[in-house]
Structure formats: C-alpha cells, structure tokens
C-alpha cells in the first residue's frame, strides 16, 4: 500500500531522539494550548502539541520537522495519554510527518479541481527539478508529497510549501518558486497571477458590485 504508514527504524530513532523535551519557548506555547481546555481534558491539545513538537524537531534539524517515535511518546506522556492514542492521531493526519523531510515540504494538491486546472503541470515542474513523490532531494532541500484537497479550489492549482500556500500556478511559476526557495529567496505567497487580489474573480467583481468600494445595503433592492 502506497499510503500506508512506514516509520523509520525504531532503535535508531530511539537512540537519536530518546531524550527529547520541549525547549522553554515551545513548552510555553504548549502550556498555552493545554490551558485552553478544562482541567482533566488536556488530551484535547494533542494535535497542537504534536505540531509544536514537529516544529521543534524541524528547528533542531534545519528541516520542516518530523515526529520520531520517542517524540510522539514524549507528547503522550506530557498529556498523560496512552502512546497508542497519540500514535493514532499522528498517523491519521498528513500534516504530521512520520519520516524526516527536507527544508521545504512541497505538498501538491492533486484533487479534482486542481487536476482540472493543471496540477499535472505542477507535478511535472517538480519532477523536472529533481523532486520525487514521497522522497527528499539529495541536497536535503525539497520533499514532495501529493495531498488531498486543501481548500484552495478557487485559485487552483496550488501547492503548500511549509506554512505558505502558492496558488494559480503553472509550470513556469512553479519552477520559479522552487528556484527562489533553493536560492534562499522568499517567493510571493498566495496567488501568482498578476493583478489578482486573493481569490477574487479575474477582471473585477461579477456579483455584489455595489460593495466593491463602499458598504451597500442591498435590502432595499429586494
């Protein structure tokens, strides 16, 4: 099964990550999340804490971070829940990486709207730059994954790289983004179409036109 969970060798990760603890900065953030839930319900913060742990691992390895088994166990004991329950959460969501990733985690949406709008070209752009689905480039820069719909259908096709979305892509813009990232430059985030503002329609509004410049009460028109 292509999408099945594969985790790296346990003994190796235990040797490397066995002593993982939250750094003071991350611990402070973690306690904020836990504090949002009533006492005794701290397990509700598991997703936030797994994300924080992954980010800390990312900081320590200069990558986007991943969740080695001892880190998952650390989060579990931090919240007083069984390892298995935390492990289930970590394997369920694609936002948690169960194997090391590169500095840039490129997540391409290949679901229907993006596919119709040309996600195949985006995948080709990645491929021509040496990115392989499910793998990391030898220089450790890019990890490529195909994911399901990320809710940017109005500006399809799109990719998510680390915490940013890049939308309205085509082959050239995708290649440019990857080059920029590789050179250490920050490409423009969001839609790549010149003249488009967020996900508003091309060429100006087609509905609610009276509201473009100022607020308008439509109720009298009904």
């Amino acid at each position, binding site marked *: *099964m292509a*999408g*099945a*969970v594969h*985790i790296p060798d*346990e003994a190796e990760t235990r040797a490397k990550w066995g002593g993982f603890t939250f750094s003071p900065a991350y611990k402070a953030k973690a306690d904020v999340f836990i504090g949002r839930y009533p006492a005794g319900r701290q397990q509700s913060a598991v997703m936030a804490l797994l994300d924080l742990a992954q980010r800390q691992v990312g900081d320590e390895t200069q990558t986007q971070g991943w969740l080695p*088994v001892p880190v998952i166990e650390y989060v579990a004991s931090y919240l007083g829940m*069984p*390892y*298995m*329950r935390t*492990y*289930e959460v970590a*394997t*369920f969501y694609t936002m948690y990486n169960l194997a090391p990733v590169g500095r840039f985690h490129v997540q391409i949406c290949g679901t229907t709207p993006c596919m119709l709008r040309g996600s195949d070209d985006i995948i080709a752009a990645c491929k021509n730059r040496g990115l392989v689905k499910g793998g990391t480039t030898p220089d450790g820069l890019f990890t490529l994954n195909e994911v399901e719909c990320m809710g940017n259908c109005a500006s399809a096709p799109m990719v998510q790289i680390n915490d940013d979305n890049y939308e309205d892509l085509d082959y050239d813009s995708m290649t440019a983004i990857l080059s920029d990232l590789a050179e250490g430059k920050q490409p423009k985030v969001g839609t790549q179409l010149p003249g488009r503002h967020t996900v508003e329609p091309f060429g100006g509004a087609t509905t609610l036109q009276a509201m473009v410049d100022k607020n308008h009460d439509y109720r009298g028109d009904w």
Partner: protein
Amino acid sequence: MPKVTVDGLEIEVPSGATVLQACEMAGKEIPRFCYHERLSIAGNCRMCLVEIAPGPPKPQASCALPATEGQIIRTDTPMVKKAREGVMEFLLINHPLDCPICDQGGECDLQDQSVAYGRGASRFEENKRAVTEKYMGPLVKTAMTRCIQCTRCVRFAEEVAGIEEVGAIGRGENMQITTYLEHAMQSELSGNVVDLCPVGALTSKPYAFEARPWELKKTPSIDVMDAVGTNIRLDSRGRAVLRALPRINDDVNEEWASDKTRHAVDGLTHRRLDKPYIRKDGKLVAASWTEAFDAIKAHWTGEAAVLAGDQVDCETMFAARALAGSSMLEGRQTGLAYDTSSLSAVNFNTTIAGIENADVILLVGSDLRREAPLVNTRIQKAIRKRGAKVFAIGPVTDLTYKVEWLGDDLSALTKAPKVLTDALKNAERPAIVVGGGALRYAGVHGAALALAKKFKLVRDGWNGFNVLHFAAARMGGLMLGYAHDGGIKKLAAASPKLAFFLGADEVDYSLFSNTFKVYVGHHGDNGAHHADVILPGAAYSEKSGTYVNLEGRVQRGERAVFPPGDAREDWAIFRALSDALGERLPFHSVDALRAEMAKAVPALGVEGLAHYGWSEPALSAEVNGKIADYPIKDFYLTNAICRASETMQKCSSELVHGTQVLEAAE
C-alpha cells in the same frame, strides 16, 4: 419503558435499549460485525441497518440508535435487504476469498452473514487491498488483509483488558489495526480478541491449522488455572484437547477467559504420567498398579496425611479423605496458615459479579491482574462505569487501572491513612480484597476483619469482605476440611508415616523427608520428582469434577477425553487402593461418590453459590512488617499443566522475561 413495533409485533423494551436490542427481543436476527454486547458501541460496520419510522426515509444503523416510544421498526423490507446487500458487498471488496486456508472458516461471522445477507457475487473488478501482517504476541496470529476494521479488538483492549496498546493507525483505505509499534499485547486476556474478531484477521497462533470447528467434540468444563472457575468448553478431537474456549456465564467470566485458561491445553499432552512408578534404590521405576498398591500397603497404618494441590476436584479430595481419614488434611501447599473456622471469612463474599458495584475497593497484598485476571476486569469495570476508587497496600505493580498506593507497610491496615478512612467512611458499597501476598503474615486476616467491622463493610444487602484465592481447589478443599491447624508446617512436624500428594507440586518436599510419599497426579513435575510411589491420575479435562470457585460457587465440569495410558480418574484410584488395603470405600461410581459427598458436605451437592452465612472469627489483629512481594512471579507458569505447555513457556519467556522469540525461517 418505551413500546416499539418490530415487523408488526408490538413489544415493550427497557428504557435505554437500542433498536438492535429491541429487534432481538422481538426475535428478529440483526446481522452485525462491530456491535458487541459487552463493548461500547462503535457503529462503524453499518451491517445492522433497519428501516425506522418516524425518521428520515433511509436505512439507519440500529446498534447506535436508542429505541423510543412509538417507533415502527422494519427489518424485512426491500430497502433493508438492499441496504444489507450493499454493506456486505462493500465489506467484501477488500476481503480476500481465502476461506479454504483461513482458520476462522466454519465459525466466521462474515462467512455466515454473507451467505445469509449477501448478494452472492461481487461487482468489484479492481485490485484488492493487501495489508502486512502485524505482530500481536505469541498467542494471536494475524492476517490483516482479512480485517474489516470493526474495531472490536481495539475496544476490548481498552475497555476490558485495560491496555491501550491496540489501535487503528492511518486513515481511509490505508487504515490498519495494529498494536503499538507491533509490540506484543501485554495482557493476560489477549486471547479474547481472537473470539471477538468476526473475521479471520485475528486467529489463535497455537491452534493455527489444527482443526475445523465441525470436527471437534465440544464438552462443557470448568477451568482450573485460577480460582475464578471460568466456564469453558473443551474442543477435542480423538484423544487430544485442541483448544479451550470460554462459555458465557455472566456471574463468573462473562464471556472472557484468561490466556492461561485458553492456551495451557497443549500441556495436557506433554510430560504426562501414564503408568505407576515405584522408587527403587533412589530411582523411579515403572511398575504395575498391583505392585504400586502393594508398596503403599507396606506403609499403611490405617491413616495417612493428604496434601491437595491447586487443581484437584472435590471428588478426588473427598475420596482421599474417605480413605485416609480427616485428621491430617492440607490444601494450602505454600504454607499459608490462616484461620478457617469461618468459611465466610475466607471467601470472596462480594461475588465476582458483585465487585462491579463497589465504589471504594481496598486491595491488600493482592496482585489481581495475575492472580485472577477476570476479577481484575470487574474492578476495571467498576472504575469505568461507576467511578470506583481503588486503594492498595503492597508493592507497586501495574494493575491496568489507576490505583492509589498506600505503601507496602502492613500497618496501613490498622492505622489507616486519612485518604482511606475518609473514602471508606463515605462509601456506600466499600470492599476489601485480601490476597495471598498478605495472608501469609500473622495478624493480617484479623486486622482486615477488624477494618471490615470498623467501616461496616458488611451491611444490609452488601458484604464487602473478600479473600482472594488463586487455586481452583482452594474453596472446595476448605469446605472438605483441607486445612490443618497451623498449616502445612505443623502437619509436617507431626511427621506422618504415609502421605498422599494430590497433584501437589508447590509443596516444600524437604519437610516430608521421613514420610512415605505417594503422588497421585497427572504431570511429571515437582511432586513426582520427590515421590516414593506415583499413581497416574487424570487432568481436569479427563474427569468429571466438582470445583468451587473463589466466591464459593459450586460448578461441575464434564470429561472431554480419556486419561492417557494406564492413568485413571483419581477417585477410582482411591477406590481401587481401598480395596487393596482391605478398607473398601462405599462408592463404585462418580454418582455414588457425589451422593456420599453431598451427605458429608451438603453444599457440594448443589451447583451454584454455597451460602456460608457471615461470622467473624476472633483473631489477633496485630500486624507488623511489610508485604515483600506477590505470590505469583510468573503468570504463565503457575502449575504443572502450564509448565508442560510449550505455548505457556513461550509466553513466559517473551512476555514476562522479555526475550525475543525468533521464528524459524519458513
């Protein structure tokens, strides 16, 4: 009490019942995979769809829907039929068609229900999904491609076994059931997931490819691995018992059985004593029955000591007592010497089912998880369902649930800490469980009784004083007088000329160096090594026997197979020996023996709970010292049958001693 109509039949159902339960009460069969009476409701297999009015015009999962007043439920409409066929077809999309090589074949819910409710053919033409096998321990064999993800095993592990080590990882098509990182399930109850699995994904490893269910002779029996008295069914073929499965008995084992109960049966065919032996010049030599009897006759003085082992049935103990006299009887092999003047003071009075209702439980030197796993699940239930609070005195051990440890100092019994006294004072149904780990210390019994009196553990309609035994023969033995004043040490000090050891393998035989030792038992274990004469007897599967479990419940098991070789049923051995000694016993059949036994101890003649009343003996309540440890060091090797069982040895080395068992390359 809502009234509902099921297929035109109006019935009243208890409030809180589900639609599925209502249908069952109306006598309708509802197919299901994920629903199980003793587990929480998951509602994920969708097989139990029915049509309900009022409600949305679509089939609804009956297992997760409460029955309400005026519901009209249909289980026989075309919509329901079509819905079931649809669900079945989806379930079978990824299920392999490997029934001929699957151990579940013949007792498979999926097989049965696809015949009854399926379409007959699949329209699925793509490739099926395949899942790698998972390691779940030495007892559970997995073929996860067959899994339909009902999550019964996950819920069982969490809710009954109390170990949250089984779960579903991944999502969607890639979801897989597995143990945490594929480590073995650390539970004494792991074998139950095999019974729970509605398909062949989890099957029994030791029983793999042994037999088909229709080849087996099924005999109701009683388990002797611990004192719970699990009701079991022995499945045998020819002369061998191939497996033991639990029978449903809500008062005792619900429908669970511990791993020892299930998987020690392969020990019944190993290291068996199949002919009499006599010790000549320090060596045991095979002999005939007559020679063996003659050797005993030479030492017969008209009386003998009898030491009963942990797994003996009441018939054997009664026959031995009838022959040897009742002045020197002892069943507490390891040297316990607690007072037995009142049977109610050494009984599990709350009853196994009753402990579920306790709200505060104090464990004194009892490692329930190993000593009585199925009592442990009841306490687990008391905590989960009724929020019971558990305190314990003794060395800290993992009981699978949250326990407030009060240290291992016994003085906590007499000078109870405030948390405990407060809890006991405010409790409605407080209970104390005194285990063998504490009973061996002088004064503990008295101190526990004093505590029970102080906090009124025995009150109207509730008896919270419990002693936890872990030998199947114990309560029966105590009822038959197998308790010598001062225990085994005092008995040995009287240095009897002749002693019968009934399957007693835990006895310190150095105490009996001047005694002529006759071992009557079924396995060549410790007892046989020290015997002067060995008389080969029958194991629990080979005789019809009466057993009394730890709560005083008299139960009878039947014979599944015959004893091997020259071995005979134990009571018949004593009957024959009595002939040879010229003191013929007055019974020639089991029935006659049982009639005699019922005359001597009337409670043993009636199946069911024996009533001991409630009386407290006056005992010294002075305690000091600490509870050093628990009596059971290795759960899997507690008696001669398990020690002879390869499966139990494997479990012990892997689960207790943590050695990796390497599979031979296939």
